[in-house]
């Protein structure tokens, strides 16, 4: 199976490490990813709340492109959207196209492709693809450096299992816990998997946004997590970038690395750190890993 | 057979005869009524005790007398009040569909549905969907049949059937 890949703006900007690690992992697993040519803004967040129709139109154009570019492939067109916001807005737009015939007709007049059947595109999150298409067994086969002893808190954020719970339970998702186990690490029982990261409040109402971040980080710390993994560029940014600010207000917070889940997979697969964008982390993870392997060696000895 | 009404502003209005079994489908239609679930008025329900009573002659008679579609309603498989009348209905229905196909009648004009006594909403849904299906197909243009259609002899109130015929040999 081959996949189309819709990066969205974050993966080319603040979330560059996400793209790097995602591409590296897929490459290592031998799964081709073809970047959607001429993609545009997905239409998410701010756009959606100001003008829904235009936001849907933006997303619809991406879907039309996918339909045209994926058409040669047999079977359903698989479109991977790693950013949670892109993933959700594409899903919403797809449903809108399928139910609102007037909108669909309007779009088919101005968009590339014939918009024959918007339902034939399967919009996928890479976590879903890796766990359900590739499979944990196949991933386990590629693990070169099992992350033994590493305690990982999995963080999903608000958008990828709600409102569309397409591959995991909306209240207590567990796909990443299964993945963490496959990588040799230990998932932390952490009840905040889908609690709010503050979203854009970190910028607009820092008091509130930072506190939300603090609660997430502190709970992960209290439950013994060595690091947090996430699936969303905004969550990753919020959780990682503000830790200094947060610590000024809440001094009990120790530095907590926040990784994209693909980075963790790459680490377990033994891919070079640079290919995974690990150097871009503000709170480095190598030290922790080193300590772990020393502990491990100690324990083995 | 009465003349088809002149198309009003609504155009073609399908005529649909529905044969509903007493225990499940007819009761479900009653429930749809009690719950005020409005549906297309085109569907005219005739009550049978069981979908197993559905004689294929009834379906053909309905088409002959002007029905554009015929709906058969029975209990879900395994739920028949008479144990398995609905399976007999299913067999007759499937063979009848083959006959209709050969006679140039769109198969969708005959539909068998399983509706339990508690599925009033399904009566509404099926009635509306089926009416739309028939509306899309348009009127059933059965060629007019010359001659009179006699009622079957046995059931005429008089003269009594046994006495009427069979003088020979």
């Amino acid at each position: 199976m081959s996949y189309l890949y819709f990066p969205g703006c974050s993966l080319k900007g603040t979330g560059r490490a996400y793209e790097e690690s995602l591409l590296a992992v897929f490459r290592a697993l031998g799964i081709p990813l073809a970047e959607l040519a001429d993609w545009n803004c997905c239409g998410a967040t701010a756009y959606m709340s100001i003008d829904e129709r235009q936001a849907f139109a933006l997303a619809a154009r991406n879907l039309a492109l996918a339909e045209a570019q994926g058409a040669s492939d047999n079977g359903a067109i698989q479109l991977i959207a790693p950013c949670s916001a892109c993933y959700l807005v594409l899903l919403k737009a797809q449903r809108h196209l399928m139910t609102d015939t007037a909108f669909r007709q309007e779009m088919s007049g101005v968009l590339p492709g014939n918009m024959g059947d918007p339902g034939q595109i399967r919009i996928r999150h890479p976590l879903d693809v890796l766990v359900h298409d590739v499979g944990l067994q196949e991933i386990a086969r590629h693990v070169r450096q099992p992350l033994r002893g590493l305690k990982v808190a999995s963080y999903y954020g608000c958008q990828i299992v709600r409102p569309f719970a397409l591959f995991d339970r909306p209240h207590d998702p567990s796909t990443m816990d299964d993945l963490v186990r496959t990588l040799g690490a230990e998932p932390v029982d952490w009840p905040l998997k889908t609690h709010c990261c503050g979203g854009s409040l970190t910028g607009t109402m820092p008091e509130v946004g930072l506190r939300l971040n603090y609660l997430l980080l502190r709970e992960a710390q209290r439950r013994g997590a060595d690091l947090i993994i996430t699936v969303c560029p905004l969550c990753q940014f919020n959780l990682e970038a503000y830790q200094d600010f947060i610590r000024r207000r809440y001094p009990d917070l120790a530095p907590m690395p926040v990784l994209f889940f693909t980075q963790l997979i790459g680490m377990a697969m033994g891919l070079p750190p640079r290919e995974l964008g690990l150097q871009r982390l503000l709170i480095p993870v190598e030290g922790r890993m080193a300590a772990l392997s020393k502990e491990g060696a100690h324990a083995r000895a | 057979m009465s003349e088809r009404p002149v198309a009003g502003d609504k155009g073609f209005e399908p005529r649909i005869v529905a044969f509903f079994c007493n225990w499940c489908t007819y009761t479900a239609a009653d429930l749809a009524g009690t719950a005020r679930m409005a549906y297309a008025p085109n569907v005219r329900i005739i009550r049978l005790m069981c979908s197993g009573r559905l004689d294929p002659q009834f379906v053909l008679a309905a088409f002959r007398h002007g029905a554009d579609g015929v709906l058969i309603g029975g209990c879900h498989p395994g739920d028949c009040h008479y144990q398995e009348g609905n399976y007999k209905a299913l067999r007759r229905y499937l063979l009848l569909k083959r006959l209709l196909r050969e006679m140039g009648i769109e198969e969708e004009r005959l539909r068998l549905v399983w509706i339990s006594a508690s599925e009033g909403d399904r009566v509404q849904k099926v009635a509306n969907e089926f009416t739309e299906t028939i509306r899309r197909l348009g009127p059933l243009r059965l060629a007019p049949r010359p001659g009179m259609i006699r009622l079957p002899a046995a059931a005429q109130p008089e003269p009594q059937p046994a006495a009427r015929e069979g003088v020979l040999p």
Partner: protein
Amino acid sequence: MRAHEIYPNGGPRIGVYVCHCGFNIAGKVNVREVVEFAKTLPFVVVAREYKFMCSDPGQEMIREDVREHRLDRVVVAACSPSLHEATFRRALEQAGQNPFFFQMVNIREHVSWVTEDPREATEKAKALVAAAVRRVIFHEPLQRRRVPVKDRVLVVGGGIAGIHAALTLADAGKHVYLVEREPTIGGHMAMFDKTFPTLDCAACILTPKMSQVAAHPNITLWTYSEVIQVEGFVGNFRVRVRRKPRYVIEELCVGCLQCIDACVYKDARFPDEFNLGLGKRKPIYIPFPQATPRVVLIDPETCIWFKTGKCKQTCLEACERAAIDFKQQERIEEIEVGAIILATGFKTFDARRIPEYGYGKYPNVYTALEVERLVNASGPTGGEVRLRDGRIPKRVGIIHCVGSRDERFNRYCSRVCCMYSLKLAHLIKERTGAEVYNFYIDMRTPGKGYEEFYDRLLQEGVHFIRGRVAEVTDWAITPDEEGKLIIRVEDTLVGAVRRIPVDMVVLAVGLEPQPDADEVRRMFNISCSKEGFFLERHPKLAPVSTFTDGIFLAGACQGPKDIPDSVAQAGAAAAEALALIDKGFVELEPNTAYIVEALCSGCKTCIGLCPYNAISFDEARMIAVINEALCKGCGTCVAACPSGAARQHLFEDAQIFQEIEGVLAYV
């Protein structure tokens, strides 16, 4: 052939009556127009309208017309025949006419209530009336069949509803078979400590009834037994019951329980079903001290003899009456009864289906049923409310509507949870002095003394927070939350999200149909409503009857119900069964199939089709014959008869052909 061709010298005289049903019909259908239309139909002598045809004056109108106009056919266009067909047939009978010269037109349920446009509704009503007029011409005089009724009753389920129904019938002198799946009767009620709103002790009011059942000469009690097959029909059901082996001879066991003491297992170590696993039992056990019958049983899953074939069988030695029988086999009993009452009860919602409430994850999250056992004096803690770690909770949260009023699971209200939550709140506060919080969506306390009980709880200082709980978590933010379960909820009265730390969470789980309700209803040939509870014949007028004559419903198998309602319904079901039996016979609808013998070719097509073996082949005459006593009137053989020799009363081909033409003649 048209009717007027068949009757060249005057034909049937038909009266057509169109009911307004207040505004129910007249609000949509132009009744006057339907009446005027009916007057134009062949053989219609009179056509009238009336506000309520089913009322006395309405019926009298028919009777008068039958006499005055010599009507011999009547059509009433009103509600569903399931409601008033019998009423109007009776009116015909009273006027000296055969009741089957009647046809009912359903212009309420099938027309006025389901049609938006008055014009279309009126046209549809006209078409249906035309069909009925054509049909009724071809009706024939018929006699109802009378079938004797067996004077015994089967009650399935030995909860409070089944017990009450059985005792009512037995006291009236009828023999009752009471079949219960569990080793004891008592059902859910036996698990409760107190009952709302009076707080009288459940055991004190239930156990005397249980002993009465055991002692009653008119009751055959079969516990640990299941109905496996039902055949026949009203008045004459043949039922097979499987009696599972308890490995103890019921007639010999006196319930001294010495065998339990003697068991090679010195300590009780297996989860005790009756206490929902909160307590322990031995392989040989009695569910609870007042179990009825007071007979022990052996669980072969845990008994070392059954598992290994090696045991000293100390129980056997301990039993002075030699009641223990390791070789006991299951037995199949066959009984014949005239009526059946289903009182199979409910199951509680599986709280694991809502993972965010933490049941099964956090040990201090309990279901309400478990707490019923905890507060019960004969329960595993002797009535003390203690957590699994032995602590006594200081703060307790009770979450309402778990699995009820929830689009994801059950849309319906389970009716009893608000009240039992209040009861548990009271008992917990009384026993522990804890602060108790109720998290509710709406308080539903409609019942005698219920609202007053709610008031009492408010006075007692129990807290009520209005809002659907989002989650139960061990995620502590503040120091006072440490080590506690935190209930996160939007308090919709305050308009804020709150976090309430507690030691114990009680989930007020809703009531659901038994997991095998679908199989049971198939066995008894009845219907289920959408949610899976057994469907009553009519929600208002026949709430304990089913669509299968002779089978009645009692208690929560028909829908969530509290004890008073279950008992009331059980009484009603018993009365219905009694009325049926005391009459001594049932009158069956004369819609049987019959074969015109002179016309049957003996092709045997029909014989294998009959689900009731009512058709046989007469080898002497080489034709098929129908035993009308066995025929239930489905008409399958009639539809199949290739030469039209098989026919069905009330559903003659000609009648149906006329109906078909009729509904199509006017559009």
